[in-house]
């Protein structure tokens, strides 16, 4: 397997107001020293709650935002500091699908023009005929009828719009697609369709997906590997099977344990994590979870746990070797 995306020690800070009278500049450490790789053909899911930095991480990788430090490499080329003209050519390798298809599709453009735009912009196909043929293929791939090409985004349902967004992302034959909460706004019945389509397309085309989501249930159905993010850092990263069958970090366990019951007989068994995530301007010393962690001890306040391997495909950032088993 070859690595299509490499991220090294990526950091992003935003200035925050606070401190009063302009003194004591506060800083939001949205992404704080994150490193990972995505292999071609795999789905790496990044899961975490709001404010954990997962969307910022996605934007840094897409170069929609510049990191404070660290490096992003796409297909062997460093892109975080690459001049824009050069970057533009590489962009076709990396496309994006966002949460709200209504705001990411131009309401005044017909579907044909929306999907053709990357083909034309990247100069991939010269003749109008070739473009139209390719758009036809793409519509078919994402399960939209051929006559969809002459219609406008508002004429489609939410799920269909997300299919248009996916077709546009696929148009320049990218090797990596960053999906930021791509199915979160969809209704249950339609969400399943889109998750399955993404999985099929990925397998057929050998795509790599970076699937950013807060929905751990969807992640389990779509991912090859999973990274769990909390307050700007990865607290655990593992292959899908180990993460769900043997979660090691207290936060990963809390995410799994607080998922609502699947059936009424399991009601009331969800174990809430106490409190709420601290403000990203006020990150606790040592381990970031310690203010909410049921297992925290002195060392957690003084020393930041580093990601350490517990198996060749599983790493966790926690001082405890063995967590007490959950009752």
């Amino acid at each position, binding site marked *: 397997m070859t690595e299509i995306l490499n991220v090294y020690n990526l950091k992003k800070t935003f200035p925050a107001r606070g401190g009063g009278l302009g003194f004591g500049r506060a800083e939001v450490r949205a992404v704080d020293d994150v490193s990972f790789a995505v292999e071609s053909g795999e789905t790496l899911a990044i899961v975490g*709650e*709001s404010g954990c930095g997962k969307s910022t991480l996605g934007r840094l990788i897409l170069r929609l935002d510049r990191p404070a430090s660290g490096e992003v490499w796409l297909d062997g080329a460093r892109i975080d500091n690459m001049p824009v003209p050069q970057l533009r050519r590489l962009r076709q390798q990396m496309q994006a699908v966002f949460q709200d298809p209504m705001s990411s599709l131009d309401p005044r453009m017909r579907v044909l023009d929306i999907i053709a735009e990357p083909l034309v912009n990247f100069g991939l196909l010269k003749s109008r005929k070739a473009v139209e043929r390719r758009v036809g293929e793409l519509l078919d791939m994402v399960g939209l009828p051929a006559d969809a090409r002459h219609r406008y985004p508002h004429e489609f*349902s*939410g*799920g*269909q719009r997300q299919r248009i967004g996916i077709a546009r992302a696929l148009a320049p034959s990218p090797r990596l697609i960053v999906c930021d909460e791509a199915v979160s706004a969809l*209704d*249950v*019945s*339609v*969400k*399943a*369709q889109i*998750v*399955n389509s993404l*999985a099929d397309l990925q397998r057929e085309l050998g795509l790599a997906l970076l699937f950013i989501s*807060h*929905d*751990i*249930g*969807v992640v*389990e*159905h*779509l*991912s090859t590997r999973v990274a769990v993010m909390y307050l700007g850092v990865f607290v655990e990263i593992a292959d*899908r*099977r180990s*993460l*769900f*069958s043997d979660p090691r970090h207290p936060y990963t366990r*809390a*995410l*799994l344990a*607080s*998922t*609502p*019951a*699947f*059936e*009424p*007989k*399991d*009601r*009331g068994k*969800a*174990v*809430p*994590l106490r409190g*709420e*995530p601290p403000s990203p301007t006020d990150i606790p010393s040592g381990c970031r979870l310690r203010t909410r962690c049921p297992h925290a001890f002195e060392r957690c306040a003084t020393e930041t746990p580093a990601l350490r391997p517990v198996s060749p495909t599983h790493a966790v950032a926690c001082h405890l070797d063995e967590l007490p088993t959950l009752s």
Partner: protein
Amino acid sequence: MSAPLLEVDDLRTSFRTASGPAPAVRGLSFAVNAGETLAIVGESGSGKSVTALSILGLLNARAADVSGRVRLQGKDILGLGEPALRAMRGAAIGMVFQEPMASLNPVLTIGFQVGEAIRLHRKLGARAVREQSEALLRQVGIAAPARVLRLYPHQLSGGMCQRVMIAIAVACDPALLIADEPTTALDVTVQAQILALIRSLQARSQSGVLLITHDLGVVAELADRVIIMYAGRKVEEAEVETIFARPRHPYTRGLLAARPRLGVSSESVPSRLVEIPGSPPPAGADPPGCAFLKRCPVAITVCSQARPPLVRVADGHVAACHRLEPACA
């Protein structure tokens, strides 16, 4: 048997649009008893939130026509004048909506807003209002109520704001609590806290709860009885255990099957989710047959010709489907 707390009979709500009336709720009847949680479940556009707004009289009369009958504690409340509605909202009926940040006024302190909920309905002195506000915040699990009362909404997290909203909703011990997607905007670790809070508050107060949600996980956690809505109509209603264990309508079955289930990772390849094909009919469309026809795996000719009526399939269990007996059972 005593009369239900809330009785809704043939509720119809239709929006006036430039292209004619767009019906959102097409004849919905149900009842909520004291001490009971009734969940109305549906996807976007099913009419579930419009149902709640219609009951509360919160739809603009120039934009929507509401007809039917809504009785709270035996008293008709549909078409009440604004003063009577104001006296009822917040007192007899408490409300919790999806976006706590958008429901709280950003320029007023939490103390003012919680206090207002008490002052509007009870004649109490400033000190008594403050004491009661503190007690309410403590009741919803806020550890330092005196401090939080002095803060503004933006200084609180989403979960804390939702606790404040719940405190306001239960300030006057309402007989009925309407909760429209109360945890949808919250993170999963916080959602579990809020669900536990709603459950414990209800156990204590014995009020009725009308829970509006798209999330069957929330239903599994809170509901006693469930109504499944599709395209403005009830397609199934039953006790919560029955809905999950023996769903009869193909749409209910599809919804339950389409949920991702945690703990399937023993398989080395991710399993596919079960899909419901197609998408809900566009708003306003009302073909003569079953609204679920085009997505239904068991549809037959009659389904395109006649709308299936709601029929009783067991005690306390109704469904609207032509294929209930026996093939689909």
